[in-house]
């Protein structure tokens, strides 16, 4: 009888929504420190568009973001894939498309952000300013959120 090998745990976002922290970043040749940022890994990123960065867009991306260091496994999603991000406090949401690789999840493992009594850990997604400002104030640089597919 062949003994079955234990398989890797499935990505946590495969069958259900996940909770994590959301921050924002600028892209496209814009003003300030964004002037040398470029258009992201997908070549289409723009601060004024409803887009986001995802930690697992490719093997090269995963090698930078390493969410597994924080004990988190996320699905491979490529450029243009749509996620729905809902702010945990207000319930406001935005649907955005992947345009870049990020955030650097492994550098902030265990970091927590709360709204009311609801908290979420680990940076799982980064939004453009246009997208982030739909669900939170840009001046609050880090917020807890829920990530799902629309």
């Amino acid at each position: 009888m062949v003994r079955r090998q234990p398989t890797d745990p499935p990505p946590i976002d495969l069958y259900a929504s996940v909770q994590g922290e959301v921050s924002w970043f600028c892209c496209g040749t814009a003003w300030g420190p964004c002037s040398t940022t470029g258009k992201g890994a997908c070549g289409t990123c723009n601060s004024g568009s409803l887009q986001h960065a995802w930690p697992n867009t490719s093997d090269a991306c995963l090698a930078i973001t390493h969410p597994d260091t924080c004990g988190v496994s996320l699905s491979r999603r490529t450029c243009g894939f749509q996620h729905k991000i809902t702010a945990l406090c207000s319930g406001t949401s935005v649907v955005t498309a992947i345009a870049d690789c990020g955030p650097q999840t492994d550098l902030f493992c265990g970091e927590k952000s709360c709204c009311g009594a609801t908290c979420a850990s680990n940076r799982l997604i980064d939004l453009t300013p246009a997208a982030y400002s739909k669900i939170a104030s840009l001046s609050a640089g880090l917020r807890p959120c829920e990530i799902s597919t629309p």
Partner: protein
Amino acid sequence: MQGIAALQPYVIALFLVWAALMKLFSRRMRAQAGRTALARLVGSARAIPTLRLVGVVELAVAAALLLPPATPEEGAAAAVLSAGFLAYLAYAYAAAPTSSCGCLGAHSHPVDVRAFARAGLLCAAGVAAVWAGPYPLDPPLVTLGLVEVVALLGLSAELDRFWLSPLRQLLVRLRQPLAVRSPAEIPLEVSLHLLYLSPAYCSASAQLTSDVQDVWDEDGLRFVVYGARERTAVFSIPLAGADPSAVRVALT
């Protein structure tokens, strides 16, 4: 003069061997090769083979410098290699200023003044090595050689994490440059953090349509005003204490 010239092949060879070993054996360096300025110059696919070829050439020149006899051609070869390297640095600086050099280390370091200074010194050393001949290396010369090596190592950004960062951290610990001197004023962010934890904020946040419009302190309370569609939301946050349930809200 003769002594200095005789010293140079050893100094140059040390750096050539270091560079060659990193290029040929560092897995991390090869993994990052695609993001260096070299990849922009020859294409990502050819970055690793080019890196390996340059490593082999560096080892060959280093071997020639270290093994007798000392001929002017060896110094010239080292000088040409360094001059070529200076040209590559100039290209990297102009074409891809934020990409890594991919030179002597596996960690990403953009090209800066120190990289140029190091390459320039090695080039000068190569030129001096043209006049290298057999010469007894007495203690003063060895000392000079060590000084030269230390100077070149000091210019190597790849090594900063071994000495410069710890030195800076020690100075920070001694001088405490960021210690708060007069903690009189409570920053707004402290109040907003308490606000975000409060039931008052949770109940009202879906209505909020703007960032903070106005803030003022009065009677131990901080009043924070947000727009809420056609209305206004005002919160009162205690300046002292950390109880989120003490935050109050009104929608007017």
